[in-house]
């Protein structure tokens, strides 16, 4: 009956070649975890950095979990998208990171990647936008034979997550 409260924000992203970025995020947990309140997934606004190359979203994340076990610790997956001048959106990177397991505030950097695709697709991406996307988004965090996937590095998403744990010590979990 331990509880975990994840409060934080997706601060922003750096290092992307694209400029107008937004981020879709979601939290995936194991079966032992139960979401008491908060939304599991969301999406930030589009930010076009004026100064520097960091896009700031400061998107709040507030989730309250109850858990009956440690397995399936919450993990965060991110999709960074960019919006071009025509208002079209295309994928800029997939990212994944675990929610920290110790209480307190954590600064996280989540590097991202995106599928490369064939040369034709790369060419198309360079000129007309769009790009290859994963058909099944859960490949981001479930990895089977990922070597088949050819990817290119995207930028980094910066997160600040605060974690409040409750009653974990009651079950012998020190944190």
């Amino acid at each position, binding site marked *: 009956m331990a509880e975990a409260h994840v409060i934080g924000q997706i601060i922003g992203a750096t290092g992307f070649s694209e400029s107008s970025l937004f981020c879709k995020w*979601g939290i995936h947990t194991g079966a032992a975890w139960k979401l008491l309140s*908060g939304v599991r997934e969301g999406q930030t606004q589009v930010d076009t950095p004026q100064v520097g190359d960091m896009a700031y979203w400061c998107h709040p994340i507030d989730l309250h979990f109850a858990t*009956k076990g440690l397995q399936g610790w919450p993990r965060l997956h991110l999709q960074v998208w960019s*919006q071009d001048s025509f208002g079209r959106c295309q994928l800029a990177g997939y990212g994944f990171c675990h929610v920290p397991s110790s209480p307190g505030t954590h600064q996280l950097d989540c590097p991202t990647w995106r599928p490369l695709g064939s040369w034709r697709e790369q060419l198309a991406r360079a000129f007309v936008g769009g790009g290859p996307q994963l058909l099944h988004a859960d490949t981001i965090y479930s990895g089977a034979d990922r070597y088949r996937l050819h990817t290119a590095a995207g930028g980094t998403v910066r997160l600040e997550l605060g974690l409040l744990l409750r009653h974990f010590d009651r079950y012998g979990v020190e944190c």
Partner: protein
Amino acid sequence: MNPREEKVSIITEESTANDEDAEVGRREKSSKVQRQQRKKQPPRADSEEMVTGKAQPGQEEPEMHLLSMPARRGPRSLPPIPSMSRTGFAEFSMRERLREKLQAARSKAESALLQEIPTPRPRRLRSPSEKELETEFGPEPCKESQATSHRNDSQSYSRVKFHDAVQKIKSKPQAPPGFPSAEEAYNFFTFSFDPEPEEPTVKARAKNRDGTHQEEEGEEESPAGGMNKMVLNVIARAGTPQKDEEELLGSQDAKDFLLGLDPAPDEFVVVRPAEYEGTHTWLEKEKELLFFPSRRAVPTWKKLPENVQPRFLEDEGLYTGARPEVARAQQNVVENRLLRQEPERKWFGDDGRILALPSPIKPFSSRPRPLAQEPSAQAGLETHYKKAVKYVHRTQHVVGSADPPGSFQLDIDISGLIFTHHPCFSREHVLAAKLAQLYDQYLARHQRSKAKFLTDKLQALRNAVQTGLYPEKPHQSLDATQKTIKEYKSEIRETRKLRDAEQEKDRTLLKTIVKVWKEMKSLREFQRFTNTPLKLVLRKEKVDQKADEEAYEAEIQAEISELMEEHTEEYEQRLGEYRASYQQWKAWKKAQKAKKKKKKQAEEHPEGEAEEELYPGEEPVKPIPPELLDHAVLEQQARERAAHSRRRPGEPVLLPELSLTGSVTPDDQCPRAEVLRREDVKRRSVYLKVLFNSKEVSRTVSRQLGADFCVHFGQIFNLQIFNWPESLTLQVYETVGHSSTTLLAEVFLPIPETTTVTRRAPVEEVEFSSSQHVTLDHEGVGSGVPFSFEADGSNQLILMTSGRVSHSVAWATGDNGTPLIPPPSQQSLGFRSALKRADAISSIGTSGLTDMKKLAKWAAESKLDPNDPNNAPLMQLISIATSGESYVPDFFRLEQLQQEFNFVTSEELNRSKRFRLLCLRSQEVPEFRNYKQIPAYDREILEKVFQDYEKRLRDKSVIETKDHIDTHRAIVAKYLQQVRESVVNRFLIAKHHFLLSDLVVEEEVPNMSILGLSLFKLAEQKRPLRPRRKGRKKVTAQNLSDGDIKLLVNICRAYDIPVRKPPASKSQQPARSSRTFSDRHAASPGAHSPPHSPDTPLSQVSVRPFVEVSFQRTICHTTTAEGPNPSWNEELEFPFRAPNGDYSTASLQSVKDDVFINIFDEVLHDILEDDRERGSGIHTRIERHWLGCVKIPFSTIYSQARIDGTFKINTPPVLLGYSKERNVLLERGLDSVRSLSEGSYLTLFITIEPQLVPGESVREKTSDLLKKFDSQEDEKLLQATEKFQAECALKFPTRQCLTTVTDISGKTVFVTRYLKPLNPPEELLNVYPNNPQATAELVARYVSLIPFLPDTVSFAGICDLWSTSDQFLDLLAGDEEEHAVLLCDYFLFLGKKAWLVMGNAIPEGPTAYVLTWEQNHYLIWNPCSGHFYAQFDTFCPLKSVSCLIGPDNIWFNIQQYDSPLRINFDVTKPKLWKSFFSRSLPYPGLSSVQPEELIYQRTDKAAAAELQDRIEKMLKEKIMDWRPRHLTRWNRHCTSTLRHFLPLLERSQGEDVEDEHRAELQKQLGDYRFSGFPLHMPYSEVKPLIEAVYSTGVHNTDVPNVEFALAVYIHPYPKNVLSVWIYVASLIRNR
């Protein structure tokens, strides 16, 4: 000569050449030691080596001793010291080294020779000598001196020696080769080998080279030969004595060479032929040594032990596995070899083949596939190139929604329909259907031929038992054999029984077929025509009588013997039992006898009696010995059975064949009834509707019914689906001629497994049947009615219409072959793995394998071979199933080891109150939506928090009648609740969409015009004479809390307030105290009133009205004004509290509170008791008399943001003590128009502070979605509506254009479908049969009596749903549209021209009215109140008209003005009205969604009466409750009077009764001061009634002797519409 020999010869040549060289060298160097020559002499290399091997150690040993250190340090490092000893050392070392070199050179030369690389040798060898020369440079002088002395003798000596040697060679070598002679040995030990070691080597090298180039021999003689410069150098340095010696040597050498070498080959070398062994010899030799196994197959007997037959395990049914593939020849070779090698035959199995493990090779290759095929192999990692697309906001918040929605497709292939019974079947058809069915059955059975299979099985089993009884393999344990035989036998028994049953079935089936066919034939003969082409042919197959008989007999014999065996077995068993029991019995008997004896003794000894009692006297029965059954009896039994179920021997085999070759009698030869039937059949056609999730998605074409009652459709419907299929239904419709269609039956199709995809799905047949009863007047037998084949009508049959639909349902496959199957649940929360989903479904959903127990049972029964690896998983399962007995896990774990590491169980987690509360709060369950601060510990949460919620969940299905007085309404309320919930759920997602304006407040950037205006504003008046209301800033309903919102009500003025009437009884002088204060007060201004009021100029009374506004039980009132047209101009302020403190838009929209605006007359009563005090004090009591009320729902205020206008005050039909007639006179004709209208009016302005953004209906946000997907309308029509709406909105953005509406199930429906003539209740039509206007009014009244419930309230502001009229009447609640639609439909039925008017009215806002065209003018009807207004009525609440809707068209108002006063309602003028259907888009004839006709049930009068009593009682209680501090007395007399009066009011609809009524009352209650009024309302619930009574404030008197009267009357209208009249009055006795 083969190559080998050649090589050998070359080597020998080389060696000889080598030898020659050596020889030459020896001859050249006379100083060469004897020993060395000796060594070289023998031609054989080995002997030479032996000698050297022998000699060298001896030579080297001393050297090693002497020189070990210096030699190692190397001569170069030594300083050139000219000492003797040094020189000796140096020479030693040098010599030593030279020898080594020589040795090395020789061995090298040999190896080089062997390698046939002679050329590089000289060069190589030269370099060391060079080196040595250099190093030797220093010590040369002394060396030379010494060397010369030595050399002289040694040279002379050597020359002698040489001669000897030559001579020796020339003669004959005496000593055997390899053994040194005595002389040599002596020489060896005595000679010192000091001098010239280098020279000979150099020479030898030179010579050697010469040897190789023999033709250049001549050059050798000149010492200055170009090639040997170095040699010459050495010689030059060596000094003169060497020189002549050289010359000597040279000449000598040449001579010797020529002399000695020429004859040498003859002497040393023997030429032999190359050794060669012929192939034959080889082979023969090999044959002796080698063994070639034969490639021929080995006979089996060789491989097996003596007298053992090969045994094939596979044939015995054991699994042996596939042997690896080895070529036959190979196998034979191995077998032969093994036979030879290991005679024990342990390598051979029982079947005479080599033992082999099953093939270890995987059936598939494990090499990674080539890269090209990758993407298709890995579906999970597939990427998909997406074009950069414009943002679709609908999917924005779903991360995982990569798949485009709607890519799921279900293919439904409907191939045809066959009726197995149809009302139009003739008797013959019935038989034919039966026959066909039987024949089908027969064919199916025949195909399966179970009997034959069982017979074969029986045979096989018998054989097995035969072989098993006499086993050939003695090694099998006897036990096992016995056991198997036993099993076999039991199986034989089973099989035999089964076979007998099968055979019998076959036979009876055949018999039945024949019987039906005979019946059919007789029927055809009887009726003298044929209807069906069916024809049965029985083909006889002759059988060999004799063989057949034999087989038959054999079979019977076998059976008998088996039976016999069984019986004997049984007999044995029984006998055993019998014996055992007999023994027992005997023992008992004995004991008994003994006892008896004892008894006898006991008679003598009385203590024995106790013992006797211990054996209670249950006497075992003497067992009966079993009987052995007679063989004959058994035989008879068996024969009987056989005769019964089997074909008799010799009887021909009958094979029925059904063909359609028969001819049908043409129509003209048939009797009339039959012709009629056939015509009827032809008129009929059938089509199927496809219903997906109980919504019609498509239908097949209508096909005519064939004479054979088959319909072929052959249509495939591709359903693009969005929701998970819940039901899939086919509805079979039949059309007869051109009349209406009837639903025959519904066929429920199973939803295909996710594994079934198109092209793999089999065509299946589903049977359907209908329960309809059809009786036909022709030959057709009808359906559901009894008919008979017999002439006398006996043996009746009742057949129902039935048939089969052949269809196939499957999931479609996409372009890339992926099945388009939606995830199992569309409402999956959060993330769900797409892969997992698919897998789980495919693995769990696969039919058949799910029931573990069944599977285990089957596996146990089918006796699977446990060794077969194919069965391994099954065997594991079986072992689980059998070992665990009852425990078969009916699940498998996705996350293993999860449970073991869990902190708590999930039950415990769910039990946590805190978590539950948190969850419920976040789910926005109404009870917990705004719950704040949930306690941190479970113990702090009270259990009762959940009580309400749980109760609500429980009560969902239970209909509570407590709150609702009559049951129908309770049911309706429940239903409404359910509809509401479903609608709320449907729109829950849509509700969470935010628009930009919800989130971002953006101040508009001021543009030029705004700036200009604001500049202009500077110049405007500070205090304008006519102030206007300014727009306020809007506030989104978010972070608001209690007290933030205020409701502002501005009461401006009122018109035509009824004025007091003087007490009517003139005759009676009113008591002094009853003279009202105001009477006197009003008397003075009354003077100016015109004197034409005839009766009482003095008692001229006015009215002192004030307004009391109550909202959420907060009450404010204005000051009191005077006169019938008062002006207050007062603003009242009310705090607003949202329910549960939830200020969200949705919650605000669903606020049900009303603003009650009541107008009262303030009456002052002088209650001064004593006239003497009149001068000094005033003692009055204020009484308030209710005059009327205006009720405005809060939802209207909220959605309108403000309400501004003049409203009609709802005054009661009878207002005792007040009148309005006088007003007309008083008005002095100032406002004649107004005075014409009855009633009083109140001007109001209501708004909310701060201004809230009205919640937009979700319909607007989701309209695209709804229109596209949730509609059955034609796509073109929908497009046209969109276009039309867009055009209209462009021209007049404020006018609402309505083309499509949402019906109660959420589908979009074209609005004209709602309008259709519908019958009003008969009762109403019969009231005024000759007065259409009165009927219309009555109908309008009826409609207005249906309670009003705004959609925003019922559906929480979600959308405007239009229910059809029957739904509306069932629900008995609806808003303006439903009322208007119903009223319009009634008017259409009454033959009026009627339209629906969409427009704005006060106070409703956007609403629907009804417009009718009476002879020469238009009437506007308010459907909710039942009132009607002429077009030019100023007080018509309808303020603007935006469009008109007729039953077949929509007209949009494109006139400049939209006020009904100023517009023309002539819709035929296209300049004024833009019509939807025009010439370009003609009206397609849309069918109506309304029912054919409305059915009205009479309302139960008794129930109404009961309800009336209950309401009355309840209201009385309420009034008493509201007066907690006073005694409430009820005047029974008055109450009964009022009760009589109310039905009158109902009859007259509250008009024109006042005077009689007053007189009546006056008569009855002479000495009471009476104030009261009847209230009239439609009945929906009790609560509004109570509210209404409360708002009148009748109870608010504190006159001590006040009495009350309250009467309730309910008039029932059809369909449970109730009109409620409540008469409340307060009476004060006049003293």
